[in-house]
């Protein structure tokens, strides 16, 4: 009897929580046509704070939110307008990511950001169908090809591969003929972005793809895949994955004595401080990486403020370039809003409906030309009707004594035609 009472109490509490959530969910929406008395601009953020990509989602998401704090508190918002940030966790769950888009629409957001290509893949149809524009921080080519209402902040995972391949052929490859490349990719849009680009452009660039192996985000060992790769005797191993699986692959590659000897390169989804933290000191100079931002601590205008906020609010992410990407995303969003305010009206932009979204895209996104992001990454331009990548350049890095050391300045990531 006591057990029944306890259980009934739990059910009642759970039902109360549902009702509360439901009420909160309904209350926060701004129905179309009804303006808030203060006409506050709202921007949505759909962030994978939890789930299997949390090691990236957390620094990126906190970087985004901290930058908005800086913009609102120190700069007084955008052109005097404080920006309200509405954010939800996706849990790296496609169903939640999809419903989050509808929630952000109901909340009256002008546009929204998505952290990962996985969440963006789940969200893109709902956003494209409604014409609700989005900025994807880490993206796959499938999100912006064909172009619709999704924009990517940085070059995509396919561009990483192309940029590194170009660098390798010009600076590292000394042998005759074409170098042999193996791909070890994540079995989702992150990895398939690399695969899709390699299929389209490998022959033109001058490399032979000898094998493509896939892994899961939860992989604990890639010995089998690497053994098969070793049999093909490739010159380069390109890893298109997130930090945790990349660290597993590197560890296994050392165990199988693939490294040192073979050149290993990591796409930007996996090439971050978290990779070094997870892999420890075993990473040698044979490991290269591509990343689309400057390095932490570089002398660029936006670094000092970002470093100050990171040390103050999230010191655990100091030195983490993912945080830098999130921070930069908010600076870009502020620039989009600035352009939208210049070319449209606050009434239109705060209407919270398709009219606002269209204005946000046409008068905001598309008007951003050559914005320098305070030097934190390559200049951003969304004016091209086909190429929806904001920044179009990356840097090539090498890991030296546990640090990511840049080998190049900005390297062009050429637009790849997928159709």
């Amino acid at each position: 009897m006591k057990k029944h009472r306890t259980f009934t109490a739990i059910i009642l509490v759970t039902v109360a929580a549902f009702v509360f959530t439901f009420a909160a969910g309904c209350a926060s929406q701004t129905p179309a046509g009804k303006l808030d008395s203060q006409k506050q601009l709202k921007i949505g953020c759909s962030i994978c704070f939890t789930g299997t990509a949390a090691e990236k989602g957390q620094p990126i998401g906190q970087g985004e939110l901290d930058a908005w704090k800086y913009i609102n508190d120190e700069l007084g918002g955008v052109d005097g307008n404080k920006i309200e940030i509405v954010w939800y966790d996706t849990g790296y769950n496609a169903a939640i990511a999809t419903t989050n888009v509808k929630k952000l629409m109901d909340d009256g957001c002008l546009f929204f950001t998505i952290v990962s290509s996985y969440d963006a893949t789940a969200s893109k149809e709902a956003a494209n169908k409604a014409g609700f524009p989005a900025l994807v921080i880490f993206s796959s080519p499938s999100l912006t090809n064909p172009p619709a209402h999704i924009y990517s902040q940085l070059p995509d995972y396919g561009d990483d591969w192309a940029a590194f391949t170009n660098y390798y052929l010009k600076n590292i490859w000394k042998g005759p003929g074409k170098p042999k490349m193996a791909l070890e990719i994540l079995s989702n849009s992150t990895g398939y972005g690399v695969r899709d680009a390699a299929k389209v452009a490998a022959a033109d660039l001058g490399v032979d793809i000898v094998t493509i192996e896939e892994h899961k985000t939860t992989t604990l060992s890639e010995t089998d895949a690497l053994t098969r790769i070793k049999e093909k005797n490739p010159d380069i191993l390109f890893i298109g994955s997130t930090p945790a699986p990349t660290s597993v692959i590197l560890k296994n590659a050392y165990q199988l004595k693939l490294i040192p000897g073979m050149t290993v390169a990591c796409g930007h989804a996996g090439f971050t401080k978290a990779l070094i933290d997870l892999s420890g000191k075993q990473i040698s100079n044979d490991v290269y990486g591509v990343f689309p931002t400057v390095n932490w601590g570089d002398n660029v205008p936006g670094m000092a403020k970002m470093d100050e906020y990171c040390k103050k609010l999230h010191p655990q992410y100091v030195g983490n370039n993912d945080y830098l990407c999130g921070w930069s995303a908010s600076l870009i969003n502020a620039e989009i809003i600035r352009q939208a305010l210049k070319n449209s009206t606050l009434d239109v932009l705060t209407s919270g409906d398709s009219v606002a979204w269209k204005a946000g895209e046409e008068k905001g996104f598309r008007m951003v030309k050559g914005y320098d992001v305070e030097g934190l990454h390559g200049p951003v331009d969304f004016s091209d009707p086909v190429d929806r990548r904001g920044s179009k350049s990356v840097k090539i890095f090498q890991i030296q004594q546990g640090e990511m050391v840049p080998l190049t300045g900005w390297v062009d990531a050429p637009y790849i035609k997928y159709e």
Partner: protein
Amino acid sequence: MSLPCGIRNYSYATDTAIIRTKTQWTLFIVFLLIVFTFPFYFPRFWLDVMNLIGITTIAIIGLNILVGYCGQLSIGHAGFMAVGAYTTAILAGSYHMPFLLALLLSGVSAGLIGLLFGIPSMRVKGFYLAITTIAAQFIIIWVANHWTDVTRGSMGLGVEAASIGPLIFDTEASQFFLIISITVLCVLFATNLARSRIGRAFIAVRDNDLAAKVMGINVFAFKLLAFFLGCFFAGIAGSLFAQWRGHITPEDFTFSQSILYIGILIIGGLGTSIGPIIGTVFIRLLEQCVTLLAPLVERSLPGIPSGFATGLSPMIFGLIMVLFLVLEPKGLAHRWNLFKASYRMWPFSY
């Protein structure tokens, strides 16, 4: 099958009816009226959540036939949904097939693939069978990823909005009417199936397949039928999912979803007709609840450590799941039956 105090049946037809009293009919009609007026007062987001609940309910009904009634443990249900989703995307997209026909064929194609993976049930059962169904999940998704000429791999396939004659289901509200109508039909079909000769045979196979065989039941045929029906529902759910989402990729049908579906069924109540509905509503709302909770906590308590609020959500989700399994292992359907029993006995407490 008990009735409220003072009421009894006077004919075989009323005794076997699903809805038997005037009160039940009234409640049922009022419930349907309330549900079908949701689009008039709920925002897009909640309609979308309800659409997802409807789709998941159909998938879980299929899983309930397979696991709950027939006792064939399957951990590849999301894979079978993928078959239905891709069938719809291809038939409706490339061949411009009418929606209803594509929907039906999606169910049939998933059912046939389910039959194929049900063949091992002749030799293995329990956890061993579960492992063979895991293979279905991975093989189907592998094919979806690599048969790029048809599925476009990770790029995915776009799916046109469903239409029946002049009706186009391209908004959250119109999709709601379509999805919930099909869900109601599926619930009625599954409820009747469970009370039929086939349903009783499934239960016999589940409880003791040797005894079922001695009674003259063709155990293997009924196991295969359960696989077909279970996967047919998964195919229907997949087809609706494709229409709802408008674009599908292999990433939409993950192994963790298959595990979640089993969790939903256990929490709802295995082998009951109400279990899949209650379980789905509970888990899908809980997901949304914890999603909305983190920003709310962080706004209300600005001093909490970084990451605490977001970490809270999965912890609460896990804790509630554990509490339910410990305190109510028979599922929420059992709790619902206790509630109904107390209503039937009212005003007497014995």
